Protein backbone atom coordinates (compact mmCIF):
# COMPACT_ATOMS: atom_id res chain seq x y z
CA UNK A 1 0.00 0.00 0.00
CA UNK A 2 1.43 3.32 -1.03
CA UNK A 3 1.21 5.72 1.88
CA UNK A 4 -0.52 8.87 0.76
CA UNK A 5 -0.80 12.02 2.82
CA UNK A 6 -4.21 11.08 4.22
CA UNK A 7 -3.08 7.66 5.46
CA UNK A 8 0.14 9.10 6.83
CA UNK A 9 -1.79 11.59 8.96
CA UNK A 10 -4.15 8.81 10.13
CA UNK A 11 -1.26 6.58 11.19
CA UNK A 12 0.69 9.29 12.99
CA UNK A 13 -2.49 10.49 14.71
CA UNK A 14 -3.33 7.01 15.94
CA UNK A 15 0.24 6.44 17.10
CA UNK A 16 0.16 9.71 19.06
CA UNK A 17 -3.15 8.69 20.66
CA UNK A 18 -1.74 5.27 21.56
CA UNK A 19 1.31 6.87 23.12
CA UNK A 20 -0.83 9.23 25.17
CA UNK A 21 -3.03 6.35 26.33
CA UNK A 22 0.06 4.37 27.30
CA UNK A 23 1.40 7.29 29.31
CA UNK A 24 -1.98 7.67 31.04
CA UNK A 25 -1.93 3.99 31.95
CA UNK A 26 1.60 4.26 33.31
CA UNK A 27 0.64 7.34 35.35
CA UNK A 28 -2.42 5.56 36.73
CA UNK A 29 -0.23 2.64 37.77
CA UNK A 30 2.31 4.94 39.38
CA UNK A 31 -0.51 6.58 41.31
CA UNK A 32 -1.80 3.27 42.60
CA UNK A 33 1.71 2.60 43.90
CA UNK A 34 1.53 5.79 45.94
CA UNK A 35 -1.49 4.43 47.83
CA UNK A 36 0.88 2.74 50.26
CA UNK A 37 3.38 4.53 52.43
CA UNK A 38 5.43 3.79 55.54
CA UNK A 39 4.53 5.41 58.86
CA UNK A 40 6.08 8.80 59.57
CA UNK A 41 7.96 7.71 62.69
CA UNK A 42 9.24 4.40 61.28
CA UNK A 43 12.86 3.51 62.02
CA UNK A 44 14.88 3.21 58.84
CA UNK A 45 18.20 1.42 58.64
CA UNK A 46 20.48 0.04 56.00
CA UNK A 47 21.91 -2.86 57.99
CA UNK A 48 20.10 -3.64 61.20
CA UNK A 49 22.10 -5.54 63.77
CA UNK A 50 22.19 -6.36 67.43
CA UNK A 51 24.98 -6.39 69.98
CA UNK A 52 24.51 -8.55 73.07
CA UNK A 53 26.68 -7.46 75.97
CA UNK A 54 27.33 -10.78 77.71
CA UNK A 55 29.19 -8.94 80.47
CA UNK A 56 25.90 -7.34 81.47
CA UNK A 57 23.77 -10.34 80.56
CA UNK A 58 25.64 -12.86 82.70
CA UNK A 59 25.04 -10.82 85.87
CA UNK A 60 21.82 -12.75 86.20
CA UNK A 61 21.99 -15.91 84.19
CA UNK A 62 18.54 -17.16 85.04
CA UNK A 63 16.96 -13.97 83.75
CA UNK A 64 14.33 -14.52 81.07
CA UNK A 65 13.06 -10.95 80.70
CA UNK A 66 13.91 -10.67 77.01
CA UNK A 67 12.30 -14.04 76.28
CA UNK A 68 9.10 -13.12 78.10
CA UNK A 69 8.97 -9.72 76.44
CA UNK A 70 9.29 -11.25 72.98
CA UNK A 71 7.20 -14.37 73.37
CA UNK A 72 4.26 -12.64 74.99
CA UNK A 73 3.99 -9.93 72.36
CA UNK A 74 4.38 -12.33 69.41
CA UNK A 75 2.03 -15.08 70.61
CA UNK A 76 4.83 -17.64 70.71
CA UNK A 77 3.32 -20.95 71.86
CA UNK A 78 4.84 -23.15 74.56
CA UNK A 79 4.12 -26.76 73.64
CA UNK A 80 5.73 -27.97 76.86
CA UNK A 81 7.90 -30.44 74.95
CA UNK A 82 11.51 -29.58 74.11
CA UNK A 83 11.25 -31.40 70.78
CA UNK A 84 8.44 -29.13 69.65
CA UNK A 85 9.88 -25.97 71.16
CA UNK A 86 9.18 -22.72 69.31
CA UNK A 87 12.15 -20.40 69.70
CA UNK A 88 12.32 -16.72 68.80
CA UNK A 89 14.83 -15.85 71.49
CA UNK A 90 16.21 -18.44 73.88
CA UNK A 91 19.23 -19.16 76.07
CA UNK A 92 22.01 -21.69 75.56
CA UNK A 93 25.15 -22.34 77.60
CA UNK A 94 28.30 -20.72 76.19
CA UNK A 95 29.72 -24.00 74.84
CA UNK A 96 26.56 -24.80 72.91
CA UNK A 97 26.14 -21.28 71.61
CA UNK A 98 29.73 -20.93 70.41
CA UNK A 99 30.85 -24.47 69.55
CA UNK A 100 33.70 -23.28 67.32
CA UNK A 101 35.47 -21.26 70.00
CA UNK A 102 38.62 -23.35 70.17
CA UNK A 103 40.30 -22.07 73.29
CA UNK A 104 40.71 -24.79 75.86
CA UNK A 105 40.63 -22.27 78.67
CA UNK A 106 38.14 -19.44 78.81
CA UNK A 107 37.24 -17.31 81.80
CA UNK A 108 35.16 -19.31 84.28
CA UNK A 109 32.32 -16.85 84.42
CA UNK A 110 31.97 -16.97 80.65
CA UNK A 111 32.14 -20.75 80.57
CA UNK A 112 29.24 -20.98 83.00
CA UNK A 113 27.31 -18.19 81.38
CA UNK A 114 24.47 -18.70 78.98
CA UNK A 115 23.89 -16.46 76.01
CA UNK A 116 20.56 -15.22 74.66
CA UNK A 117 20.27 -16.47 71.09
CA UNK A 118 17.98 -15.32 68.30
CA UNK A 119 17.85 -15.27 64.54
CA UNK A 120 21.16 -13.80 63.35
CA UNK A 121 19.61 -12.00 60.37
CA UNK A 122 22.64 -13.09 58.37
CA UNK A 123 24.05 -11.00 55.58
CA UNK A 124 24.25 -14.19 53.58
CA UNK A 125 21.27 -16.17 54.83
CA UNK A 126 21.21 -19.85 53.89
CA UNK A 127 17.52 -20.14 54.77
CA UNK A 128 16.61 -17.62 52.08
CA UNK A 129 18.55 -19.56 49.48
CA UNK A 130 16.65 -22.75 50.01
CA UNK A 131 13.11 -21.44 50.50
CA UNK A 132 11.10 -22.66 47.50
CA UNK A 133 8.28 -20.12 47.90
CA UNK A 134 10.18 -16.99 48.93
CA UNK A 135 8.30 -17.09 52.21
CA UNK A 136 11.56 -15.97 53.75
CA UNK A 137 13.70 -13.33 52.13
CA UNK A 138 16.24 -10.67 52.98
CA UNK A 139 14.89 -7.14 53.12
CA UNK A 140 16.75 -4.04 51.96
CA UNK A 141 17.51 -3.17 55.58
CA UNK A 142 19.12 -6.54 56.27
CA UNK A 143 16.24 -8.13 58.16
CA UNK A 144 15.62 -11.73 57.20
CA UNK A 145 11.86 -11.51 57.03
CA UNK A 146 9.19 -14.19 57.05
CA UNK A 147 5.82 -14.23 55.33
CA UNK A 148 3.69 -16.75 57.17
CA UNK A 149 1.01 -16.43 54.54
CA UNK A 150 3.33 -18.00 52.04
CA UNK A 151 5.13 -20.66 54.09
CA UNK A 152 4.21 -24.18 53.02
CA UNK A 153 5.99 -25.90 55.89
CA UNK A 154 8.58 -27.75 53.81
CA UNK A 155 11.22 -27.08 56.50
CA UNK A 156 14.11 -26.65 54.05
CA UNK A 157 15.03 -23.47 55.93
CA UNK A 158 15.22 -25.37 59.21
CA UNK A 159 17.67 -27.77 57.61
CA UNK A 160 19.66 -24.87 56.18
CA UNK A 161 19.87 -22.67 59.27
CA UNK A 162 23.02 -23.50 61.23
CA UNK A 163 21.82 -21.64 64.32
CA UNK A 164 18.60 -23.44 65.22
CA UNK A 165 16.76 -20.14 64.87
CA UNK A 166 13.79 -21.59 63.05
CA UNK A 167 10.98 -23.58 64.59
CA UNK A 168 8.18 -25.58 63.09
CA UNK A 169 4.63 -25.76 64.40
CA UNK A 170 4.03 -29.49 64.68
CA UNK A 171 0.72 -28.75 66.34
CA UNK A 172 -1.85 -26.02 66.22
CA UNK A 173 -0.44 -23.26 68.43
CA UNK A 174 -3.97 -22.20 69.30
CA UNK A 175 -4.72 -25.57 70.84
CA UNK A 176 -4.32 -26.76 74.40
CA UNK A 177 -2.52 -29.66 76.04
CA UNK A 178 -4.11 -32.69 77.69
CA UNK A 179 -4.85 -30.71 80.87
CA UNK A 180 -6.57 -28.02 78.83
CA UNK A 181 -3.76 -25.51 79.34
CA UNK A 182 -3.56 -23.37 76.18
CA UNK A 183 -0.21 -23.34 74.39
CA UNK A 184 -0.35 -19.56 74.14
CA UNK A 185 -0.84 -18.38 77.70
CA UNK A 186 -2.26 -15.00 76.84
CA UNK A 187 -2.99 -14.07 73.26
CA UNK A 188 -1.97 -10.63 72.09
CA UNK A 189 -4.76 -9.78 69.62
CA UNK A 190 -2.71 -7.08 67.91
CA UNK A 191 -0.34 -9.72 66.52
CA UNK A 192 -1.33 -12.88 64.65
CA UNK A 193 -0.67 -16.39 65.87
CA UNK A 194 0.66 -18.97 63.46
CA UNK A 195 -1.02 -22.15 62.37
CA UNK A 196 -0.04 -25.79 62.27
CA UNK A 197 2.54 -26.54 59.60
CA UNK A 198 4.21 -23.14 59.46
CA UNK A 199 7.80 -22.23 60.28
CA UNK A 200 8.41 -19.20 62.47
CA UNK A 201 11.33 -17.24 63.84
CA UNK A 202 12.39 -13.84 65.12
CA UNK A 203 11.81 -11.03 62.61
CA UNK A 204 13.73 -8.33 64.51
CA UNK A 205 10.30 -6.94 65.41
CA UNK A 206 9.63 -5.54 61.93
CA UNK A 207 6.14 -4.54 63.08
CA UNK A 208 7.60 -2.45 65.92
CA UNK A 209 10.36 -0.85 63.82
CA UNK A 210 7.62 0.26 61.41
CA UNK A 211 6.06 2.22 64.27
CA UNK A 212 9.34 3.67 65.53
CA UNK A 213 9.79 1.24 68.42
CA UNK A 214 12.84 -0.85 69.25
CA UNK A 215 12.52 -4.64 69.33
CA UNK A 216 10.61 -6.06 72.29
CA UNK A 217 13.60 -7.96 73.71
CA UNK A 218 15.72 -4.80 73.73
CA UNK A 219 13.04 -2.93 75.65
CA UNK A 220 12.44 -5.86 77.96
CA UNK A 221 16.04 -6.19 79.15
CA UNK A 222 16.51 -4.39 82.47
CA UNK A 223 20.31 -4.69 82.22
CA UNK A 224 20.27 -2.99 78.80
CA UNK A 225 22.43 -5.88 77.60
CA UNK A 226 20.76 -5.96 74.18
CA UNK A 227 21.52 -3.08 71.85
CA UNK A 228 19.83 -2.71 68.47
CA UNK A 229 20.96 -0.38 65.73
CA UNK A 230 22.19 0.28 62.23
CA UNK A 231 25.69 -0.93 61.41
CA UNK A 232 25.73 1.36 58.40
CA UNK A 233 25.67 4.41 60.67
CA UNK A 234 29.10 4.94 62.30
CA UNK A 235 27.47 6.96 65.08
CA UNK A 236 24.94 4.29 66.05
CA UNK A 237 25.04 2.76 69.51
CA UNK A 238 25.83 -0.66 68.07
CA UNK A 239 28.83 0.58 66.13
CA UNK A 240 30.08 2.45 69.18
CA UNK A 241 29.87 -0.71 71.32
CA UNK A 242 31.63 -2.80 68.70
CA UNK A 243 34.35 -0.18 68.35
CA UNK A 244 35.09 -0.23 72.06
CA UNK A 245 34.66 -3.93 72.87
CA UNK A 246 35.83 -7.26 71.54
CA UNK A 247 32.94 -9.26 70.17
CA UNK A 248 32.39 -12.74 68.82
CA UNK A 249 29.72 -14.15 66.52
CA UNK A 250 28.20 -17.60 66.26
CA UNK A 251 29.89 -19.98 63.82
CA UNK A 252 31.52 -17.22 61.75
CA UNK A 253 33.45 -19.82 59.76
CA UNK A 254 30.33 -20.76 57.83
CA UNK A 255 30.36 -17.45 55.98
CA UNK A 256 26.79 -16.53 56.77
CA UNK A 257 27.92 -13.19 58.24
CA UNK A 258 25.63 -13.18 61.28
CA UNK A 259 24.48 -9.73 62.39
CA UNK A 260 24.16 -10.51 66.08
CA UNK A 261 27.39 -9.74 67.92
CA UNK A 262 28.27 -10.99 71.39
CA UNK A 263 30.53 -8.82 73.53
CA UNK A 264 32.51 -11.09 75.86
Amino acid at each position, binding site marked *: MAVDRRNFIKITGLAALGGAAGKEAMDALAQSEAKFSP*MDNALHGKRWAMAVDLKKCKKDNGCKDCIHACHSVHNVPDFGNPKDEIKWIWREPYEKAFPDQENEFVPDDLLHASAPLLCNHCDNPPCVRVCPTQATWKRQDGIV*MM*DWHRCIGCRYCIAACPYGSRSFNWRDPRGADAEGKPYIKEQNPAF*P*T*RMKGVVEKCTFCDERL*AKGLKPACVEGCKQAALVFGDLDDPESEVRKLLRENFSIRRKPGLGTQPEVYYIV
Partner: protein
Amino acid sequence: MIYDKEKIVPGIVVFIVLFTFPVWYNLAFGSGEGAPKPELPAQEKQCVESKEYMRTQHMDLLNQWRDAVVRSDMRLYLSSENGAKFEMSLTNTCLKCHPNKTRFCDQCHDYMAVKPYCWDCHIAPTE
Protein backbone atom coordinates in the same frame (compact mmCIF):
# COMPACT_ATOMS: atom_id res chain seq x y z
CA MET B 1 -46.57 -33.15 15.42
CA ILE B 2 -46.05 -34.39 19.00
CA TYR B 3 -47.74 -37.56 20.19
CA ASP B 4 -49.39 -37.36 23.63
CA LYS B 5 -49.23 -33.56 23.57
CA GLU B 6 -51.99 -33.33 26.19
CA LYS B 7 -49.80 -35.26 28.66
CA ILE B 8 -46.38 -33.86 27.78
CA VAL B 9 -47.14 -30.13 27.80
CA PRO B 10 -48.85 -30.09 31.21
CA GLY B 11 -46.06 -32.36 32.43
CA ILE B 12 -43.44 -29.84 31.37
CA VAL B 13 -45.45 -26.99 32.92
CA VAL B 14 -45.81 -28.87 36.21
CA PHE B 15 -42.09 -29.66 36.18
CA ILE B 16 -41.10 -26.02 35.63
CA VAL B 17 -43.49 -24.82 38.33
CA LEU B 18 -42.15 -27.34 40.84
CA PHE B 19 -38.55 -26.73 39.87
CA THR B 20 -38.78 -22.97 40.32
CA PHE B 21 -41.03 -23.27 43.39
CA PRO B 22 -38.41 -22.19 45.95
CA VAL B 23 -37.60 -19.07 43.97
CA TRP B 24 -41.05 -17.63 43.50
CA TYR B 25 -42.31 -18.90 46.86
CA ASN B 26 -39.54 -16.91 48.50
CA LEU B 27 -40.33 -13.90 46.36
CA ALA B 28 -44.01 -14.06 47.22
CA PHE B 29 -44.12 -15.20 50.83
CA GLY B 30 -40.48 -15.16 51.96
CA SER B 31 -39.71 -13.16 55.08
CA GLY B 32 -36.19 -12.37 53.92
CA GLU B 33 -35.09 -14.66 56.76
CA GLY B 34 -31.51 -15.89 56.38
CA ALA B 35 -30.39 -13.03 54.17
CA PRO B 36 -27.17 -11.53 55.53
CA LYS B 37 -27.62 -8.59 57.88
CA PRO B 38 -24.16 -7.39 58.77
CA GLU B 39 -24.19 -5.16 61.83
CA LEU B 40 -22.76 -1.78 60.90
CA PRO B 41 -20.58 0.21 63.30
CA ALA B 42 -22.54 2.59 65.50
CA GLN B 43 -20.05 5.49 65.59
CA GLU B 44 -18.15 5.32 62.33
CA LYS B 45 -19.92 6.40 59.16
CA GLN B 46 -17.01 6.16 56.70
CA CYS B 47 -15.08 2.99 55.83
CA VAL B 48 -11.62 3.06 54.20
CA GLU B 49 -13.35 3.04 50.82
CA SER B 50 -16.93 3.42 49.61
CA LYS B 51 -19.55 0.94 50.77
CA GLU B 52 -20.06 -0.45 47.27
CA TYR B 53 -16.33 -0.98 46.76
CA MET B 54 -15.88 -2.66 50.13
CA ARG B 55 -18.84 -4.92 49.53
CA THR B 56 -17.41 -6.40 46.36
CA GLN B 57 -13.66 -5.80 46.67
CA HIS B 58 -12.75 -6.04 50.35
CA MET B 59 -11.03 -9.38 49.82
CA ASP B 60 -8.81 -7.96 47.08
CA LEU B 61 -8.08 -4.93 49.21
CA LEU B 62 -7.05 -7.14 52.12
CA ASN B 63 -4.76 -9.12 49.85
CA GLN B 64 -3.15 -5.91 48.61
CA TRP B 65 -2.76 -4.74 52.19
CA ARG B 66 -1.21 -8.05 53.19
CA ASP B 67 1.38 -7.92 50.43
CA ALA B 68 2.14 -4.24 50.97
CA VAL B 69 2.69 -4.68 54.71
CA VAL B 70 4.52 -7.99 54.84
CA ARG B 71 6.53 -7.84 51.66
CA SER B 72 7.12 -4.13 51.09
CA ASP B 73 6.98 -2.90 54.70
CA MET B 74 4.41 -0.25 53.79
CA ARG B 75 2.02 0.37 56.66
CA LEU B 76 -0.31 3.21 55.66
CA TYR B 77 -3.10 3.18 53.08
CA LEU B 78 -4.26 6.33 51.35
CA SER B 79 -8.04 6.20 50.93
CA SER B 80 -9.24 7.29 47.51
CA GLU B 81 -12.58 8.05 49.15
CA ASN B 82 -11.55 10.95 51.41
CA GLY B 83 -7.75 11.10 51.33
CA ALA B 84 -7.43 9.87 54.90
CA LYS B 85 -4.62 7.50 55.86
CA PHE B 86 -5.30 4.21 57.57
CA GLU B 87 -2.97 1.66 59.10
CA MET B 88 -3.18 -1.45 56.92
CA SER B 89 -4.12 -4.06 59.47
CA LEU B 90 -6.97 -6.51 59.65
CA THR B 91 -6.95 -6.80 63.43
CA ASN B 92 -5.90 -3.26 64.28
CA THR B 93 -7.95 -1.34 61.71
CA CYS B 94 -10.90 -3.32 60.32
CA LEU B 95 -11.77 -5.03 63.58
CA LYS B 96 -11.63 -1.79 65.53
CA CYS B 97 -14.83 -0.63 63.82
CA HIS B 98 -16.22 -4.12 63.22
CA PRO B 99 -15.38 -5.82 66.50
CA ASN B 100 -18.01 -8.52 66.22
CA LYS B 101 -16.98 -11.18 63.73
CA THR B 102 -20.17 -13.24 64.04
CA ARG B 103 -22.47 -10.30 63.52
CA PHE B 104 -20.46 -8.68 60.75
CA CYS B 105 -18.03 -10.89 58.82
CA ASP B 106 -19.76 -14.23 59.25
CA GLN B 107 -23.12 -12.85 58.14
CA CYS B 108 -22.21 -12.74 54.47
CA HIS B 109 -19.48 -15.38 54.56
CA ASP B 110 -21.88 -18.00 55.91
CA TYR B 111 -24.59 -16.94 53.48
CA MET B 112 -22.22 -17.26 50.53
CA ALA B 113 -20.60 -20.40 51.97
CA VAL B 114 -17.10 -18.97 51.75
CA LYS B 115 -14.53 -19.81 54.38
CA PRO B 116 -11.77 -17.19 54.54
CA TYR B 117 -8.73 -18.54 56.36
CA CYS B 118 -7.68 -15.16 57.80
CA TRP B 119 -8.86 -16.28 61.23
CA ASP B 120 -6.53 -19.26 61.33
CA CYS B 121 -3.87 -16.79 62.43
CA HIS B 122 -5.42 -13.35 62.90
CA ILE B 123 -7.20 -13.12 66.21
CA ALA B 124 -10.82 -11.99 66.20
CA PRO B 125 -11.82 -9.87 69.20
CA THR B 126 -13.70 -11.66 71.97
CA GLU B 127 -17.42 -11.09 71.63
